[in-house]
């Protein structure tokens, strides 16, 4: 399986989470950004199209993960993001953070998400059933919160 941040194929969440948990951490925070069935003035969103400036997105993501490991010793993380067309209900983004404790894992996860929002050159286009589309031009922090799936394993 590729270690690249960006991928065109569906994200294998179970396998990736299993891989990073092999180090037997005390806490795992797993975040998924899921394409939701949004309704806008133009109609119901049928899916999203993601586009990135790939070289810069990959290098920035590698830097963010390295910073995370330096700030929270013992923590580790992986991230994946889809490119191209993604349907409603599919995972568009996965971030998994492991750490010795829950507080460290949550803090590190928030740090990575905040950094990704400002540093990763990645765009999304709402796609509608009639074939039209519209690029998003704003940061949508509320989507990150409402779409989050956070889990902490029992220690």
């Amino acid at each position, binding site marked *: 399986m590729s270690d690249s941040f960006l991928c065109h194929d569906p994200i294998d969440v179970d396998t990736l989470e299993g891989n990073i948990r092999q180090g037997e951490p005390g806490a795992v925070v797993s975040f998924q*950004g899921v394409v939701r069935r949004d309704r806008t003035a133009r109609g119901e969103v049928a899916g999203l199209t*993601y586009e990135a*400036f790939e070289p810069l997105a990959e290098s920035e993501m590698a830097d963010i993960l390295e910073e995370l490991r330096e700030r929270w010793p013992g923590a580790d993380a992986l991230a994946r993001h889809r490119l191209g067309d993604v349907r409603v209900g599919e995972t568009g983004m996965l971030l998994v953070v492991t750490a010795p404790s829950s507080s460290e894992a949550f803090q590190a996860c928030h740090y990575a*998400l905040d950094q*990704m929002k400002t540093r990763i*050159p*990645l*765009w999304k286009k709402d796609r509608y059933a009639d074939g039209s589309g519209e690029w*998003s*031009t704003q940061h949508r922090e509320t989507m990150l919160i409402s779409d989050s799936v956070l889990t902490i394993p029992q220690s």
Partner: protein
Amino acid sequence: MIVLRLFAQLAEKARTRSREMPPAPTPGALLERETSLSFVNPSSVRVSVNGRWAQWTTPLKDGDEVALLPPGNAL
């Protein structure tokens, strides 16, 4: 020559994702000279040179790749 790369809404408006352009001293000078890119607002668009973040005043040399990165973020 300079290779110019465009993304998302900028690529759609320009009807191209990549084009070769004559050299310019900076990305800002490139944008100012190219009237077909007059819709690009440098105050909201970020710029990269050779895959790294750059400024509109970053010096360019022949063969450089300039990427114009529009506002918006998928995250």
